[in-house]
């Protein structure tokens, strides 16, 4: 009953929960792109606040993905045959269809844990470790942060750093960039060893309370990624300069991305209380030395009904400009560029998300949330550079996805 009472007291906004307390958030998320990927994700997020002000947190995520994913090859007026990444087996794609590799199947387990501790009344220090593993990918990381309050806690400045080391050992090996996809049963030209990359993030953040109802948060993150960043499963079609169909031999080349990437992210968010409701508006600007830049706007309105019940509509819009080396295809007879990828995620695109979350208090003061979101992403389906038959096909098919999440948050009492 105590947790129900604490939950009820929470309705009065009287603070508390400063003594020892453990809160556990669990969620199951389903993500489905019709005809493409389906993912199920289970999340357990725990936090324990110790009596001495330290906070321990951990997070466990398990994903299972299945389905088909775009290979980067262009559609064609001819039926196309692709060798599976393992080199064993092949699949056919009908004329006019976007080539999708339907063997996409993976499970991922990620675990992170961290500790935040007060150094004095206004300064907190935290550090954490991260590890994730899937069939062909391992990522290990560490992070740290220092936050300090100023101006009677109306201003908080944070410095953050993180380092990750990732390695990939894909099924069938890592193809030598720009070599051709071999026929079934023939080994592809491979890079030796595992692919690895390192990520270093440095960030600085500022949170400012403007008045009783408004809080502004600004954040800048610099990120430096080095070494193997090519997707070993992605390729580009080399098409005939007149017909637009794949050339006769060696028609599919494995992609090649630069091995150094520097990213800058600027993020700003305003939270405003309107009576009992809360509106969050955020803007994110992303730019990197691959030539990608994107603008993302996110708006949520939490409509509180009292008694812990709320509805939260969500709208998100983003507009991304393509990487310099993004190509829908390569043209036979033209010199190879230094780098190229047909991965749609590096292309020009706009994405819209519409969502609605409902939350309520159930049973012993636990919170139940249900979220439903629809995501739609589109780009230039008929780029000006399309040649021959490619002018007839959708070179950037719209991807839409449905996301459904059920979350349950509860407290553990001794």
């Amino acid at each position: 009953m105590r947790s129900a009472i604490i939950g009820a007291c929470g309705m009065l906004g009287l603070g508390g929960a400063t003594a020892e307390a453990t809160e556990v958030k669990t969620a199951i998320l389903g993500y489905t792109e019709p005809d493409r990927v389906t993912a199920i994700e289970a999340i357990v997020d725990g936090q324990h606040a110790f009596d001495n002000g330290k906070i321990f947190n951990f997070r466990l995520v398990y994903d299972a993905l299945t389905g088909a994913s775009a290979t980067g090859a262009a559609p064609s007026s001819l039926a196309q045959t692709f060798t599976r990444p393992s080199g064993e087996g092949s699949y056919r794609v009908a004329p006019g269809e976007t080539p999708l590799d339907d063997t996409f199947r993976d499970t991922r387990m990620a675990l992170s844990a961290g500790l935040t501790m007060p150094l004095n009344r206004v300064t907190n220090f935290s550090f954490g470790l991260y590890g994730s593993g899937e069939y062909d990918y391992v990522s290990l990381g560490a992070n740290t942060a220092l936050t300090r309050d100023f101006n009677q806690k109306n201003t908080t400045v944070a410095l953050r750093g993180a380092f990750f080391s990732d390695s990939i050992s894909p099924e069938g090996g890592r193809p030598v960039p720009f070599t051709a996809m071999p026929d079934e049963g023939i080994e592809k030209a491979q890079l030796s060893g595992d692919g690895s990359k390192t990520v270093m993030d440095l960030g600085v953040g500022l949170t400012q309370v403007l008045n009783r109802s408004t809080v502004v948060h600004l954040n800048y993150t610099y990120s430096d990624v080095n070494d193997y960043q090519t997707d070993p499963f992605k390729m580009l079609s080399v098409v005939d300069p007149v017909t637009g169909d794949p050339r006769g031999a060696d028609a599919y080349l494995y992609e090649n991305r630069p091995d150094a990437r520097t990213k800058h992210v600027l993020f700003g968010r305003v939270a405003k209380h309107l009576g009992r409701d809360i509106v969050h508006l955020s803007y994110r600007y992303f730019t990197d030395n691959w030539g990608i830049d994107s603008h993302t706007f996110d708006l949520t309105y939490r409509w509180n009904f009292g008694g812990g019940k709320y509805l939260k509509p969500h709208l998100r819009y983003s507009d991304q400009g393509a990487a310099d080396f993004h190509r829908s295809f390569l043209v036979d007879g033209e010199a190879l560029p230094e780098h190229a990828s047909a991965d749609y995620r590096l292309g020009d695109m706009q994405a819209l998300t519409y969502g609605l979350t409902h939350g309520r208090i159930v049973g012993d003061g636990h919170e139940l949330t249900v979220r439903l979101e629809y995501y739609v992403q589109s780009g230039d389906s008929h780029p000006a550079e399309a040649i021959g038959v490619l002018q007839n096909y959708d070179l950037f098919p719209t991807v839409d996805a449905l996301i459904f999440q059920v979350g349950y948050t509860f407290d553990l009492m001794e």
Partner: protein
Amino acid sequence: MKVARQRDHWQGQFKAMASPCEILVDVEQEAEARLLCEAAEAEARRIEQKFSRYRDDNVVHALNHGAGQPVTVDDETADLLDFAHRCHEISGGRFDVTSGVLRRIWKFDGSDAIPSRKQAKALLPLVGWPQIKWDRPKVTVPPGMEIDLGGLGKEYAVDRVATLLADRAVAPVLVNFGGDLRAVGRRPGNGNWQVGVELPGVVDSAGLKLDLGVGALATSGDARRFLLRDGIRYPHILNPRTAWPVMKAPRSVTVLGDTCTEAGLLATLAMLQGADAESFLADQGVKNWVIR
């Protein structure tokens, strides 16, 4: 308002809510301490005036004199009514903000004035939260019934004042209204607050010496308030479902919790358990002191 320097903090004292009130703040300057203590007193008086049942110019009066018509209430009152509704639900009807009408027949003045069972029964139709029509922000109180938020008022005021001061001062604060208290903000370097708590009316009570970091303490029950007839003691705690005292209730229950409101509610619910108060508290996993 008296503000005095103690060994490693400032102490402000005033009277409100029929209790001695004490504010301890861990700031350097007297001027700052005084401002905080004045803000504390102003907030305590605001809550007292707004929710006191002894006034005719506040929201509680308006609710109880609505003649069966809906009354629209402000957000703070609405939050308290939502809270009262939730507490009624959690406690299986034991906690009921409409039970104040029982004071018409029960006056715990140490006398032997025990009402008859018939009198008690006659009042029962006027007690029961489910009869209140609560459709936020509109509340309709049927004629003859009463809502009394006084049972929550002092603990709520302690929490409000403590969070208000902690936000404003960015310094550790302890708020103590007649033994119901709350500490917010750890005291780096200075250790915990050392507080003494009187347990009202407990004979030979040396009080409670407490070493409190962050948290809250609340007491339910007052051993000075009872009725006595034919050697039977009728304690001050009433069961809203029978309109009769909870006969085996302890003299007082003190609970340590995260917020004063939480501690107060647990203490009251424990009292309502009568003979089972101790086992109820053991189930909640809270530190407590029960005096029989």
